[in-house]
């Protein structure tokens, strides 16, 4: 073993060679976002290697999906990314609809955009708040949860649940919005808009925050693509990809006519559709700060999308349409669809033999790929940087382990 360590080129040499220590960070650790276990090989404060161990939250969701009908499996998608359950419902529903070649009504389409973007805001709020927690500041976390709570209230009013919604389903949505909901939603958006400036003051532009995140965990665009990273993690590295714009037509058709700019640094600057704080000079594209900033930008852009969706939805006078039968038969064949979930590109794959129950169900988790890059980013960083880097990837263990 000693020989092996000596020959390992990944270990950084220092003047004083001390014993290495293997430390388990997790699965019961305050900042591993659930039940992630990181094995750190440390030399003093310096981490020479990080090895993520997963599987503590494995619930055989995919296998269960092979024993339930497509609509019955919707609640299980809720429990994958439990912070953005709406987007998970949407991903699976669209994948099934793709195989069924089902077209939802116009009203349902706009309502789906509205709900999915609200879900994105809620998810990014948790990601943002929990990131502050990882860096040792508690208050932004509660400020984020305060606003998220209002979104959950709205969701509760729409579908009755606060976390596992099962609202968006195959063939549409389970119910239409209750009267007065849109007004409340608009009120929330108006109230929420100035709060974002508070987040920027407390985190994004805070000197200590910038010190802790700038040039930490730098991921080159090549590395990000190599590891299959997606979502804000990929865009934080400056890769211009967003499934809402670049995805398959069944998904992009949902966003037809919606004006939004992908939150990514292009030509050395971020979109200028709103007054965003300036990028600090000591940040490097692809570092923790940029991943965080992309999320903050997406929150604002999702708000724009929600506003547009409210207008379009209220202009639609047609019926919402009923979702498909619970035991609706799925035509034989297979379908794979990736959607842009808050954490990244979430893919659902199903193979059907013509019965109501899919023959094969698989999910491609964005968090899984995003987590896989941890050992590259954490090499040679300090212990304090490990939560900073893992937090900036914004992983959800429910989605990784499924």
């Amino acid at each position, binding site marked *: 073993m000693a020989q092996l360590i000596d020959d390992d080129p990944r270990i950084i040499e220092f003047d004083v060679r001390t014993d290495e*220590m293997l*430390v388990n960070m997790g699965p019961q*650790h*305050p*900042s591993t976002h659930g039940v992630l276990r990181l094995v750190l090989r440390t030399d*003093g*404060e310096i981490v020479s290697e990080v090895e993520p161990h997963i599987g503590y939250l494995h619930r055989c969701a995919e296998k269960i999906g092979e024993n339930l009908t497509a609509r019955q499996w919707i609640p299980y998608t809720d429990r994958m990314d439990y912070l953005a359950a709406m987007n998970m419902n949407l991903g699976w529903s669209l994948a099934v609809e793709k195989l069924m070649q089902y077209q939802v009504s116009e009203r349902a389409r706009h309502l789906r955009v509205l709900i999915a973007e609200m879900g994105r805001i809620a998810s990014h709020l948790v990601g943002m708040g929990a990131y*502050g*927690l*990882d*860096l*040792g*500041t*508690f*208050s932004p976390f*509660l*400020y984020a949860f*305060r606003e998220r709570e209002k979104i959950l209230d709205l969701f509760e009013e729409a579908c009755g649940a606060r976390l596992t919604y099962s609202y968006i389903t195959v063939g549409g949505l389970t119910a239409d919005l209750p009267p007065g909901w849109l007004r409340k939603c608009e009120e929330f958006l108006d109230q929420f808009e100035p709060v974002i400036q508070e987040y920027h003051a*407390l*985190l994004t532009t*805070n000197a*200590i*925050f910038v*010190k*802790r995140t700038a040039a930490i965990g730098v991921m080159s665009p090549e590395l990000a693509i190599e590891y299959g990273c997606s979502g804000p993690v990929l865009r934080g590295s400056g890769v211009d990809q967003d499934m809402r714009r670049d995805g398959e037509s069944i998904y992009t058709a949902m966003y037809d006519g919606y004006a939004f700019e992908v939150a990514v640094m292009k030509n050395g600057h971020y979109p200028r559709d709103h007054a965003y704080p300036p990028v600090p000079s000591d940040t490097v594209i692809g570092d923790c700060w940029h991943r965080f900033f992309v999320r903050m930008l997406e929150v604002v852009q999702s708000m724009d999308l929600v506003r547009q969706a409210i207008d379009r939805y209220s202009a639609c006078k047609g019926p919402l349409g009923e979702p498909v039968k619970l035991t609706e038969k799925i035509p034989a064949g297979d379908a794979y669809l990736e959607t842009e979930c808050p954490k990244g590109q979430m893919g659902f794959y199903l193979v059907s033999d013509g019965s109501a129950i899919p023959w094969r169900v698989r999910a491609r988790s964005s968090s899984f790929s995003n987590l896989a890059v941890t050992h590259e980013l954490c090499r040679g960083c*300090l*212990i*304090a*940087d*490990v*939560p900073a880097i893992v937090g900036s990837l914004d992983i959800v263990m429910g989605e990784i382990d499924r």
Partner: protein
Amino acid sequence: MADFLINTVGLPEWLAWTITAFVAAALILNVIAGGALVFIWAERKIAARIQDRLGPTRTGGRFGWLQSLADGIKLLAKEDLMPEGADGMLFRLAPYISFCASFCAFIALPFAFDFVGQRLNVGVFFVVAVLGLEVFGVILAGYASASKWSLFGAMREAAQVVSYEVPLGMCVVVPVMLAGSMDLVTIAEKQAGWITNWYLFHDPFTFVIFWVYVTCAVASVNRAPFDLAEAESELVAGFHTEYSGLRWSFFFMAEYGSMFLVSALAALLFLGGWNGPIPVATLAGLSEGTGDTANYFVRLIGCGNLLLKATLGVLLMMWVRWTLPRLRIDQVMTTCLKYCTPIAAAMFAGAMLWQLAFPGGVVRGLSRPAGEIREGWLEGPGGLSPGRREPVPQVGAAGGMESQEVVQVVP
């Protein structure tokens, strides 16, 4: 009090002194422990308000006054756990060392003129040195816990506190130099009078060094953003990961005791100690010579003054804690070695040169020359008896300061 026991009650001298010592110790211990409870409650409420919450609302009435007490009872009733591989003796010893170090320093901390456990002529150094002992408890706790996270916490604490003692010491030396004494009572008494007499406003260098002191003080008592030793998002709970129940609460009490101590020290060294911003007592004709009751009353108000200032300092620390993210260990060391130490050194030199250039302060009357009152206060513990001093009105050269009175020694 000892005099009273010997002369009036007629107790033998050794017994009188022992009783006095016990009473003083009990007073300090209880006041500080009670204070810690209040601060813990205050921190909960303040954190809650900062975070848009309510905090404790039920325990002991509307504002949750008794929350800390209820917590204390809970901690008492908790199982006392010790990890299997722990070094038993050191593990048990560590919290007491931290606690004792934190509370011992209060011996030399004056709350008002003569309201001091033991007046020491090296009071400043005693306080700083004893406070520095607290780190031993933390290191022992981390070492004895047989937990890797604890060890990391202890290593960080050792590196951090030892480094920050250097700039902290330099900051403390500046008021000592200005006052010409290491006795905290003397230092505070020299800042008597108007707010301009406070060493904070003595010259630009002391103003800057006060903020360096604040930074170093926060760092040396391990409060955010320098709370690396217990960084919960990195090290679980750092050095006290394996502690539970009463032992853990001893660390907690030590932390709050130290917080109060460094704030009180800041008040004594820079913010005029127990002297208010306006010399109300002197203006009202209540000076040291007026009489015992009035005298006592003035001191009591002074004590309140100091407590108020120290509490404000603690509140500032709480505010900072609930606002800022935590620094990384290398950044903490950088802050200390690259910023705090050089700035402190430069300010120290600056304050020294300022004293040479303007021995009586820039404008006479704004800051009093040290020599004017020095001799009177250096005559050992207890200072002068009230009868030997009388206030002499001094007409300030700057104008507008006519009412200021300076205590001078009658030859």
